[in-house]
């Protein structure tokens, strides 16, 4: 195992057709170890399909994905390398959470005591011997995390893990994933909670309609938008100010408020001074991940 590629996830040219639907369309990106990577996209964008292809559960129409340089199916005892939580994954309703984990331990050649350790880690010890049927949504999600961590993997792949967690649970999960990444491991997590992602993720991969729209560090992606920063101005003389700013500035007028993009707040201030335009308000509005996301995926969000 090459230490440099350990835990790195590489997706190259991944494509999946379901009949005429191109669920994933020639998608390529990489996920680095030691960082939390958010995997974002509107409903039906192809996130779940992509993650399932990475994990060898869905056969790609073309393309491939590797983890630490190997295809998932070629990893020896894959759960020792990759832990996963996926939608539409569950446990037998009539089986206890503990036995659910022990069965996996047995299959992967891990000591059965590992099940109890993981139950302790996710705080499920009191419910360990209860049947899965009686677990709440949050408890099920925690069991999923325990299951993902069983093999002490160097990469985690999670599909909407925050689903059903209470606020405390969400914070707990965030801390867990951050800690996991800080140990130099890889975390790839899909989510719709953009505010949460902005706090959690170092990098993002944004897809829409099965295609890549943006990839990179959260800050870079947000800044990289041409309209990443907007300047809000109130002035009685909007036309004169726009003329003074020159052709680079894009603007829109709304209810006496002038929104400018493509220029920074100091540039606007300087231009106003030069032109002798009176300003009542000058605010630089930093856009957040949600704005960028909505803008990037606008028009492509339609469910196919």
């Amino acid at each position, binding site marked *: 195992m090459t230490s440099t590629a350990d835990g790195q996830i590489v997706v190259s040219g991944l494509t999946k057709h379901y009949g005429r639907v191109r669920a994933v369309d020639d998608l390529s990106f990489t996920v680095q170890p030691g960082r939390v990577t958010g995997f974002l996209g509107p409903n039906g964008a192809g996130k779940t399909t992509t993650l399932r292809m990475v994990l060898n559960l869905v056969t790609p129409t073309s393309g491939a994905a590797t983890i630490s340089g190997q295809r998932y199916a070629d990893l020896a005892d894959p759960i020792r390398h990759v832990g996963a939580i996926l939608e*539409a994954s569950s446990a037998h309703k009539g089986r206890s959470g503990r036995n659910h984990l022990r069965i996996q331990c047995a299959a992967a050649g891990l000591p059965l005591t590992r099940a109890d350790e993981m139950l302790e880690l996710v705080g499920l010890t009191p419910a360990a011997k209860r049947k899965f049927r009686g677990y709440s949504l949050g408890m099920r999600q925690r069991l999923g995390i325990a299951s993902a961590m069983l093999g002490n993997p160097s990469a985690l792949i999670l599909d909407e893990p925050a689903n059903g967690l209470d606020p405390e649970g969400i914070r707990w999960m965030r801390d867990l994933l951050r800690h996991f990444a800080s140990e130099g491991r890889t975390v790839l997590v899909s989510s719709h909670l953009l505010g949460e992602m902005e706090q959690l993720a170092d990098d993002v991969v944004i897809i829409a309609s099965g295609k890549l729209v943006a990839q990179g560090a959260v800050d870079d992606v947000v800044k990289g938008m041409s309209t990443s920063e907007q300047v809000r101005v109130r002035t009685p003389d909007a036309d004169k100010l726009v003329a003074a700013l020159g052709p680079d500035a894009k603007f829109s007028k709304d209810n006496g408020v002038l929104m400018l993009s493509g220029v920074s707040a100091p540039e606007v201030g300087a231009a106003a001074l030069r032109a002798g335009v009176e300003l009542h308000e000058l605010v630089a509005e930093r856009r957040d991940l949600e704005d960028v996301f909505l803008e990037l995926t606008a028009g492509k969000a339609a469910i196919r």
Partner: protein
Amino acid sequence: MRLIRSELMKIRTTNVWWIFALSILAFNVLMLLIWTFGYTGDRLRSAKMPMEQMLPPASEVPPEEYERMRQEILASRDIDKILIDGATQIYTSGQFFILLFIMLLGAILMTNEFFHQTATTTFLTTPQRTKVILAKFAAIGFFSVIIWAVTTAVSVGGGAAYLASQGYGAQLGEWQVQRPILMNLLAFVLWGILGVGLGVLLRSQIAAVVVGAVAYVIGSQAVQIAAFLVYEYLIKKDWVIQAMVGWPSVASQVMISPDAFMGAGIVAAPKWWVGLLVLIGYGLFFGVIGTLITRKRDIT
């Protein structure tokens, strides 16, 4: 090996298995009572009745008819034959239902993965899907061996005690008695494998259980009726009746006791190994097709 262990844990960690185990034991004991006190007991009792009581007065029937009846009764009083026939049935008590339960257990072991959405976890842990299915075959086979050991112990223990109480030996030295007991083992294992194969082919739990049970319980009757109709009205050839062995439940019947073949009165029953080959054929067919499908299938 650890995959088999994991599959055995899957069986053991839900309530299903002991519900099945209890049902199997219940049928085992019930059929044991019927085959001992009912079947064998009746035949032994009538064998000991004075001859005159069983025949109509000689004056009432024509002499040749009287002689025929006398011969028939004499034949049915062959104690050795009664004991061997009886022991054969007694030592495989409950076979019909046990096979059904084992098949259903096999089917459920497979369809549970989809019904309870555990397939994701299973195939994440072991992406080599063929291995998973082989482990399921092995696990159900192992389970079948245990069921065979327990039910055979009950049948042989109870049966031998009954025979001893009637003043007879256990008949276990006879190959004619040993063979069905051993064939029963083979049948248990093969039907478990058939069940897993059925579960792979019909991913839906309900479909697999219903199709399996119906095909097993009603299927052989339907096949029998069809074969006899064809024989009567279309093709009056022996092979039409003998071809019934192509149906799995008939095949296992033939494998265990060819005498019980439903067409035995009309045509020669197929050899026991024909039944064995047919069952193995089904096991292989279901297993291979099921494995190929599972390898291709998207788990979503």
